[in-house]
């Protein structure tokens, strides 16, 4: 299950350079750099409030950075107009920490929502087939008619994942995929992420402070500390590291 072997030299799908974001006087990111190559899982490790979520929100331009460059699939994200940005966003999946399911819609409607908006499914049958496919992939085919409020935390996360995957994204950004779940459910989600990554051939950035995610899912880990990419390496590199900040994360291992 462990994905420790780094894939061969591949196309770069995300390049973040010198990213700076401040909220008032609070400088969250102070020149962050990160690369993501095709087929790779990069985990961004960092304490709560270190700006991990801010980073991936900048990548899909939910937040606008103060300075820096972000290139996704060869396009300069910060220079795109709304129409181009929407096209690019279809190719990027984003899993919210809160799952962010539309709570006034059923699971089925949640999944159909992005499809309808992009005219991706041409017929009723095609929509049904796609919904079936992703629901089966996340193992929740029986929840179709349920509302998000009837689902458990882990199920919500799975449906959120299904809604992200239904657009067949090339890149998936995960915002704390296991936070708030019990260890067993968290592990199931990590395994699901890996399985879906193989099935849909996606590249991903996983934001987390969960070392299980680091161990099981990450090809490469980047440590976000004081707004910068302090150190990068594999899980084993991190275990062997002498860096006091890295050690702090692994102290309970």
């Amino acid at each position, binding site marked *: 299950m462990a994905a420790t072997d780094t894939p061969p030299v591949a196309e770069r799908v995300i390049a973040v350079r010198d990213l700076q974001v401040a909220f008032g006087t609070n400088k969250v990111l102070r020149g962050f750099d990160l690369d993501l190559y095709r087929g790779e899982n990069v985990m961004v490790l960092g304490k709560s409030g270190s700006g991990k979520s801010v980073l991936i929100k900048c990548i899909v331009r939910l937040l606008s950075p103060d300075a820096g460059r972000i290139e996704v699939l060869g396009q300069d994200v910060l220079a795109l107009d709304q129409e181009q940005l*929407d096209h690019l966003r*279809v190719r990027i999946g984003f899993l919210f920490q809160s799952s*962010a*399911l539309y*709570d006034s819609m059923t699971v089925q409607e949640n999944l159909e929502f*992005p499809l309808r*908006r992009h005219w991706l499914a041409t017929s009723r049958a095609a929509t049904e087939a796609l919904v079936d496919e992703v629901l089966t992939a996340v193992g929740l085919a029986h929840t179709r008619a349920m509302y998000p409020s009837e689902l458990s935390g882990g199920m919500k996360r799975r449906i959120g994942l299904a809604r992200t995957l239904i657009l067949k994204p090339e890149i998936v950004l995960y915002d704390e995929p296991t936070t708030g779940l019990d260890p067993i459910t968290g592990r199931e989600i990590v395994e699901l992420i890996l399985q879906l990554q193989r099935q849909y051939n996606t590249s991903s950035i996983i934001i987390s402070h969960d070392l299980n995610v680091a161990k099981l899912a990450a090809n490469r880990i980047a440590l976000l500390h004081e707004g910068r990419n302090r150190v990068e390496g594999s899980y084993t590199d991190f275990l062997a590291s002498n860096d006091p900040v890295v050690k702090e994360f692994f102290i309970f291992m």
Partner: protein
Amino acid sequence: MAERSGFHALAVEAGELAGFAGRFFRNAFHARFEWRELVRQAAINGYQSLPLVGITAFIMGLVLTVQSRPTLARFGAESMLPAMVAISVVREIAPVITALICAGKIGSSMGAELGSMKVTEQIDAMEVSGTNPFRYLAVTRIWSTTLMLPVLVVLADAIAIWASWVGVNIRDTVSWPLFYRQVFDSLEYGDFLPAFAKSYLFGFAIGVVGCFKGFTTAKGTEGVGRSAHTAVVVASLLIFILDLIAVQITDLLGLT
């Protein structure tokens, strides 16, 4: 966002609201129009407001009639009662009361619903899936209130006038055909059209303010509550301001 206060905050807010309204017009006639959602919103904001608007209009028509009668009777002008009530209902009471009722009912529900969607990242989720949440959520809601409010106002006019006939008949006996004739002899297009036109503006104000407050909700659950109540307060205030402007314009056009 830093906490602002006083006049500066008001000016900034007004500017942002105007920007939001501008954004509506840029998206209002977009080819990818969400017709299904518009119909659903029109049903929620129009059809489901009808009972409340109807009851209010009935009571306003009845009370206005009963209250005006003694004064008119003192001048021996009781026969003017239908005309007086009809004119005040059509020109002012029905549009303003309906708009205020809707500001309360629709404005608060929009502020709270969109506000909850905002703080639970549902609006962000729509945005990152490449769909335009503004077009789906705001444009349809603003169109629905803009188009439904005039309809509600016309229905309120009719109900209030009928209630006035009921009010007259508490003490006197006036047949409906006679009452109806007296009402329509006194009403002119100049009474009805400006009132009808301004109810579009009222509907637009309710939709824009409700959506603006919802979309700009911050700070969690408390923010949702604040959005809901400020949507009502701002929309109601805006309705009065628009009413003031509308009356000046009709006055200048010689329609009074």
